[in-house]
């Protein structure tokens, strides 16, 4: 691929990633925000592909888009009926948060761009070799973090089940409604 084509692809993926990200923030409808997350995550998967990280392209699609995003959309639909479409979808912190997040992004971008990173990309191994090497690493040098991550998933699973399971006796409905700050 020519340099120009690579640049073009990168720019396209940038737009594909950042524009939906902005929409995730700004769109009023939360369900739409959930849908906007899809192209964003696909854009990131594309970037992974450009970085020759083949395993993670698949992982991104499977884990993020296949599992996490579906989970998110599912729970959005579950709780949608409580959301008043006329109520504001953003809190009063926009004025404070925008400059702070912009500053953070700017500082990160400037510093990272300015740093004299060692020159140029080194040729990457093929997809199959990479995946084999990763598999070996996960049962070799990095077995411990891998195992720890499995405990982490187990813990999250246990915690999620405990929290999500309905309590034996529901509190009366009247008690639920009068929450502090409930009426905005």
């Amino acid at each position, binding site marked *: 691929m020519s340099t120009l084509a690579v*640049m073009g692809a*990168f720019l396209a993926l940038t737009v594909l*990633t*950042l524009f939906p*990200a902005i929409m*995730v923030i700004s769109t009023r409808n*939360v369900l739409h*925000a*959930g849908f906007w997350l899809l192209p964003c*995550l696909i854009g*990131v998967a594309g*970037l*992974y592909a450009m*970085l020759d*990280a083949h*395993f993670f392209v698949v992982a991104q699609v499977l884990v993020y888009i296949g599992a*996490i995003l579906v*989970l*998110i959309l599912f*729970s*959005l639909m*579950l*709780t949608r009926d*409580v*959301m008043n479409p006329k109520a*504001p*979808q*953003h*809190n009063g*912190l*926009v004025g404070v948060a925008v400059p702070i*997040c912009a500053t*953070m*992004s700017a500082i*990160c*971008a400037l510093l*990272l*761009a300015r740093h004299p*990173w060692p020159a140029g*990309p*080194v040729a*990457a*191994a093929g997809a199959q070799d990479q995946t084999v*090497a990763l598999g070996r*690493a*996960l049962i070799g*040098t*990095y077995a411990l*973090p*891998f195992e720890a*991550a499995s405990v*982490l*998933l187990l813990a*999250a699973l246990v*915690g*999620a089940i405990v929290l*999500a399971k309905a309590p034996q006796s529901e509190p009366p409905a009247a008690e639920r409604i009068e*929450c*502090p*700050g409930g009426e905005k």
Partner: protein
Amino acid sequence: MTVGLSHYLILGAALFGLGALAAITRRNAVAVLMGVELMLNAANLNFLAFWRYLTPQGMEAQVFVIIGFTVAAAEAALGLAVVLNLYRDFGTVNVDEASGLKG
């Protein structure tokens, strides 16, 4: 002009900031979770960019990304359970309405 490491890093920084913005300003708890996922994605992008340009033979970055995926999945699962709980007790999924504890 070729696409270099810094391009990915700048993109990552932007994505990170946008994720933080979503996490801070959206009232809906699920949308907050989406923001956090964006932030984690930015970090993962950083890792893979560094891996590709600096240590293509090393494995640590990829392991870190796998951990990042795991954490994202775990947080999504747990987060949604927490939100469900919030919905049960408060009748809302807006983070800013659960503000009884303060001071």
